[in-house]
């Protein structure tokens, strides 16, 4: 029996973690896995720290990932990786987007955005840092940054056997489908 895998997608409200995790779960479901997903809506979406938790396998119990329970942490924002790293399993994989969003306490001067995030992350875990925003912009729109990051999950979790192109085409506006498919491939190539 296959053990349950847990992928934690984190970022800042409005970055598109919800669409990325939705596509991920649709692909996993089609591939025959039992899937559970959990996310928090509401107030935290207004620029707060957000997470989408995806778990899949033969039979999944809890929809939420526990501390030390994530096989993979994908952070859409640099500092958020550090906030959520405690959820990673020893030996787990981290993909972090080289993208900083100052939080309100940083903007008002009440807190400092740490300057040594990457070294701290790298000392603790297997970390790949990618410029998902840059990759997305080169493809044509910064808005597909979330799909680039989805691509890194597909690659890192060994999910290439799922027909992601079909999943994407079935769930995004036709005008943006090609761009999203390219973004997924670019993300897969980046890790």
């Amino acid at each position: 029996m296959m053990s349950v895998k847990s992928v934690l997608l984190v970022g800042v409200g409005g970055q598109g973690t919800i669409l990325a995790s939705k596509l991920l779960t649709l692909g996993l479901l089609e591939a025959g896995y039992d899937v559970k997903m959990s996310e928090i809506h509401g107030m935290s979406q207004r620029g707060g720290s957000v997470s989408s938790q995806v778990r899949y396998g033969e039979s999944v119990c809890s929809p939420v990932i526990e501390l030390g329970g994530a096989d993979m942490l994908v952070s859409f924002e640099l500092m958020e990786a550090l906030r959520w790293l405690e959820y990673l399993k020893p030996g787990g994989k981290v993909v972090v987007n080289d993208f900083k969003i100052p939080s309100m306490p940083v903007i008002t001067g009440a807190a400092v955005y740490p300057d040594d995030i990457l070294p701290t992350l790298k000392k603790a875990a297997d970390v790949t840092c990618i410029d998902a925003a840059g990759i997305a912009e080169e493809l044509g729109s910064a808005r597909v940054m979330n799909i680039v990051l989805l691509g890194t999950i597909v690659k890192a979790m060994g999910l290439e056997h799922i027909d992601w192109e079909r999943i994407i085409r079935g769930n995004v506006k036709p005008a943006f489908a090609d761009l999203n498919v390219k973004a997924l491939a670019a993300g897969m190539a980046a890790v």
Partner: protein
Amino acid sequence: MKKLITGDEAVARGAWEAGVKLAAAYPGTPSTEILENLSAFPEVISEWSSNEKVALETAIGASLAGGRAISSMKHVGLNVAADPLFTVSYTGSNAGLVVVVADEPGMFSSQNEQDSRNYAKAAKLPMLEPADSGECLEMTKYAFELSERYDTPVLLRMTTRVCHSKSVVELGERSEKPLAEYKRQGGKYVCVPAVSRKLRVKKEEQFAALAELSESTPLNFAVYNEGSTGVIVSGGCFHYAREVFGESVSYLKLGLTNPLPKKLVSDFCNKMDKVYIIEENDPYLEDFVKTLGIKPIGKDSFPYTGEMTPDVIRKAVFGESLPGVSYDKSKVAPRPPALCSGCPHRGFFYELGRRKDVMVTGDIGCYTLGASAPFNALDAVICMGASLSMGHGAAKLLDREGSNLKVVSLLGDSTFFHTGINSLLNSAYNGGSAVNVILDNRITGMTGHQENPGSGYTVNGESAYAVNIEDVARAFGIKHVRTVDPNNLAEVKAVLDEFIPLDEPSVIITRWPCALKKFSAEDKSEFPGAFTEKYAVDQSKCIGCKLCMKAGCPSLSFDTGKWRAVIDRSGCLGCGVCSQLCPKDAIGKENA
């Protein structure tokens, strides 16, 4: 057909499959999506009600008229609806009546952490607690049957994770129900004392029958494994417990949790040496189990507050979390929610936060964020609509005592229509000097943009009369009423200067759409060009004084290397508040 859906979607689907004819709700995280999903089914009359009491009463009326009806709300919404809840429990329903309540252990988007299971007990309602989306769908369908079979409303109790987690469900088809016959039955529905005394006795008989059902229903079941440790659990905690204990313990999983099954629980516990009770918030199950003379491990080991997620259970039972990676987390800066770029509340809060001679009572919505830095503009937030009535009470007292402290009360448009409208009526009637501010962003913002009586549309997108708040205030007899553009700081300051010293009630309406709102045709004509411009900082004029930082805008930051303010072009929506704070005219419109 199998589908991966949230608990909220599953409740909506279950109600539809059960042939529900009317659904009424007021938006509230985490319950909002139930009504949103129901509104997509053309067979169902769906309504955003003005508040939860109205929603439940609308559903009661439909049930009385013979159609299955559902009303959904967040936990604090049930407080608003508690009045009809306690009495409709006596009358029962004609067609099935289901009340959905969504609690928030952990308070992700709520002002308290009440455990609404206590309502089932207090109002004597049968209660179902689903653990996942599959159970949400099945239990919702069953709740309608139960309601009709026992002639009582049924409470379906959810929690945030059950509402917002997705799991796989099997979809069914709708089973259309003909209207139940309507008959005038004063002895059943007219709750005058003589009738209610009889219904009260009948309720106890009904509960005795439900207690028997609780012993035999497949919703309450035991799973026996090796060993002599047992776990008694309900709702989403079932899956958390399974995650931690796996097959090393036996489970008594309870789905019908009011009334609880005495014999089933006793029999289970008698087979065990040790029994854990895993539940979020109050010791609801634990208190019951203790009445049976059993000594379980409950709140003496598990926390009262927050979610009972697998790591919390693991820590409580085994004293440690799973091994993780070690690193220094201390440098991570907090990231609380903040007003969005372009938020129309920003300008108003900037001006209000500068005044130190006012007490400010706030309310429930995005504008609660006015309490945080850099605005620090609120003194108190309690519940929906309370801003205006708290402010009224404070102002009356301060005026009587001759205090120089003046009172400003503020709430949003949807919260005004919810219960604030009653508070304003009271202020107009009883006098007093509070300044009542309605932050009208043309939509219900925090919960994700639901229509309301002022927005001009219904949940189905049909046109509705857009209530004019100025007209309402004047109809109540308030003489000082003004609508202002909250992005115009001079205008905001002027109206506060004028209204705060008055010794009569006044109303300020700040009217500008939410920056995330999808504009209606009316918005486009009323607010032409809104959110289409960008501002930029002229780096040669900026002196690095940081005054613009007081706008608290996520798209405006300070580059400590260059010692200059910078605007993130992709985030700026052109409200222009920051430019009005700059003493050197360094911030201006692009291409100006």
